[in-house]
């Protein structure tokens, strides 16, 4: 197999000018005359082995593009569900009844999840102000297959020790199998909750379909 200068420059991670200089200085095994240099792959492999140089014949760019697949907030909300009229007068009871409502969580893990979410609340409140809180556990939940965001509207506002000291009436649960997804969803959610129109819309306890559609349009404007 024969390679051109531009192929080789990609494999060695240097610009074509460098390759030309190496050829001129007699350091590379080359066939063909200037300016139409060709390199035989067999010769190059021998040369590289002799000089302990790593030739990367696979594509360099492909690796970096992986793991970039976006996961949308609206998708996670659809999985987690939207629940209304959550009863309870204090933090622990609202969290408990909310977790009881969320589907897609294996029943054996509900107690454990409550414990973890409470632990997080005790360390630092997740009430971000404007009557909204984002309860979540600190560690990723490895038993989940996909990320869940569950929106729970409380029947009565609850004293949540939030930043602005106002009682909380909406909870956004973020439950993820990995930290990366968690960061991603948290970041998108934080973007959405900066929008005052959206918060007003949220306060009107909208229909689930309308809410999800609203989130869909908002997340499109979110910088990746």
């Amino acid at each position, binding site marked *: 197999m024969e390679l051109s200068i531009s192929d080789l420059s990609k494999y060695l991670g240097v610009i074509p000018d460098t390759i030309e200089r190496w050829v001129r200085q007699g350091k590379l095994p080359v066939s063909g005359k200037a300016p139409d240099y060709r390199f035989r792959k067999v010769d190059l492999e021998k040369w590289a082995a002799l000089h302990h140089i790593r030739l990367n014949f696979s594509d360099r760019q492909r690796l970096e593009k992986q793991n970039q697949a976006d996961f949308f907030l609206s998708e996670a909300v659809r999985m987690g569900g939207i629940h209304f009229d959550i009863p309870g007068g204090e933090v622990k009871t609202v969290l408990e009844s909310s977790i009881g409502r969320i589907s897609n969580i294996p029943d054996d893990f509900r107690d454990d999840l409550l414990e973890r979410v409470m632990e997080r609340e005790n360390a630092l409140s997740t009430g971000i102000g404007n009557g909204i809180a984002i309860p979540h556990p600190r560690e990723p939940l490895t038993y989940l297959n996909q990320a869940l965001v569950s929106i729970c509207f409380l029947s009565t506002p609850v004293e949540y020790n939030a930043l602005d000291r106002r009682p909380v009436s909406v909870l956004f649960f973020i439950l993820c199998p990995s930290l990366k997804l968690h*960061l991603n969803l*948290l970041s998108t959610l934080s973007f959405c909750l900066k929008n005052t129109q959206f918060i007003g819309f949220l306060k009107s306890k909208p229909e689930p379909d309308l809410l999800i559609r609203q989130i869909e349009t908002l997340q499109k404007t979110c910088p990746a």
Partner: protein
Amino acid sequence: MIAVMNRFKRFYYRVFQLDDRLLLIISGSIAGICSGLAAVALRLSLESVLTWLRPFRHYGWAFVFPAAGAVLSSFFLEKIVREKAGHGVPEVIYSVSRYGGLLKLRSSYSRLISSFLTIGSGGSAGPEAPVVMSGSAIGSNIAGFLRLNDRQRITLVGCGTAGAIAAIFNAPIAGLVFSIEVILGEWKFVNIIPIAIAAVAGAHVSQAIIPENILFSHHPFDVGISDILPSLCLALLTALVSVLFTKALRQTGALAKKTGFPFWARAVIGGSVVGVIGMFFPQVLGEGYRFIQSMISGDFPSGLFFTFAAVFAKILATAITLGWGGSGGIFAPCLMIGSLTGVVFYKILFILFPNIGCASEGAYALLGMTGLISGVMQAPLTGIFLIVEITGGYEAILPLIVVSSISCTMSHYLEPASFYFKDLIERGQFLRPGTDARILSDLNISELISRGYIKVSENMVFREFIEMLKTSDQNFFPVIDEKTDAYKGMIEIRAIRKYALDPGMYDMLFLNQIMDTNMLTASLENDLQEVLDMMEINHMDTLPVLDNHRFVGMISKTRILDLYRRELIMQTSNR
């Protein structure tokens, strides 16, 4: 008295410390004389024991001699001085490149005794590698006695080597060339003069004790232009034989290790086999100088087929002697096989073209020797000068150069690593001065680490971290478990920029939720080559370094380049 001492010290400092050339010349010539004495002692004792044993060779039980010698030799090496078997030249080369030529004092006599036992009893090996080992150990220990630094010690190791080779062959230039070409691997002005003087000193010791001036004396050859074409063909033949010999040596050794016998059993088997070969081909036993002499003089009695078979018998005997527990070098066997090859070639040439009118059989024995030495050691200059000096055959210099260079090139093409270097290359220990491998092995990870990084706890809230970030210029923050101090992950500012610019995230995150736990880490035990490979494969510029799960510092390509360049300048400067 003290005043005198002080003045002497000042004088010593001014003369020797500022410019060590004189010191190196004086101590180098002492090293040359000492190693010359060692070489002459081995050569004379071998001659006398071989002469003494010769009458017994005709008996049927004579094959036990090499076996007994090999057992004694390997017992001596394994149990008394506890050194590895083999010829020792790679060990010297490695010590020069890695440990500044540091060699043990006992190496200066251990190989002499073990190879005396092996060769004296009839094992097929040469006394040259043992005297090289001994000479270089003498040089190294003289340097240790004078408290010299690594660079000066390496020069003295070269002096010892040159003195030993010069003395055993009575060939000063060959000693100089071998020492620089094979052992040191770099032609440096500061090395050449002390080594040349040591070589001359070694040769003089040999001349003073052994009366004959030239190892293989002969009548002048009538070598002309008509010999160039035949010597071309001979060179191709010697290249093939060299590769065959190198392969045989290595594979017999590997085979012996694979059997799993204890060392004494291997020595018994190997020695007996060599003894049996010796019953049919008495030429293969011992170092073979006597037969080389007869071939050069042109009165080697055997016919074509016998000589042809003797080439293989000698290769086999040497491979078995060295691979199965004996101790000795390949220099003399190379000369022997080379001269046999040369004689075979001449005989075939004479049958094919009876009227060709080229030089005598002895001249071709000479050319064959050069071909084998250059082919096996891949050291063309050593091959040329050694043969010119030991035979005084300066008239054959032109075909010698032809044979040597072609044989060297051809065998290099067939077998890229020479016999001396092959083991080192396989173990990654071939580190010539000024090469990439050498610099990478000299720099170690702890020299390259940037320390003093601020560590953060995994329980820190992101807002606190952002506050800290405002006053810090670090790009990497190692995250640790605050109780155990163990490394948990890494926060790279580049990767978290998006979250750092979003105040809505500040109170939502603890650092353990945002750190990168998959970042590769290096450890202090890694060598630089491994770390660079890691960086290259994963396209990283910076790696955290851990020691026993604790964060030590970061290693970055920038810092590596910085120190690499300085190291390269230090290693390639002339002083």
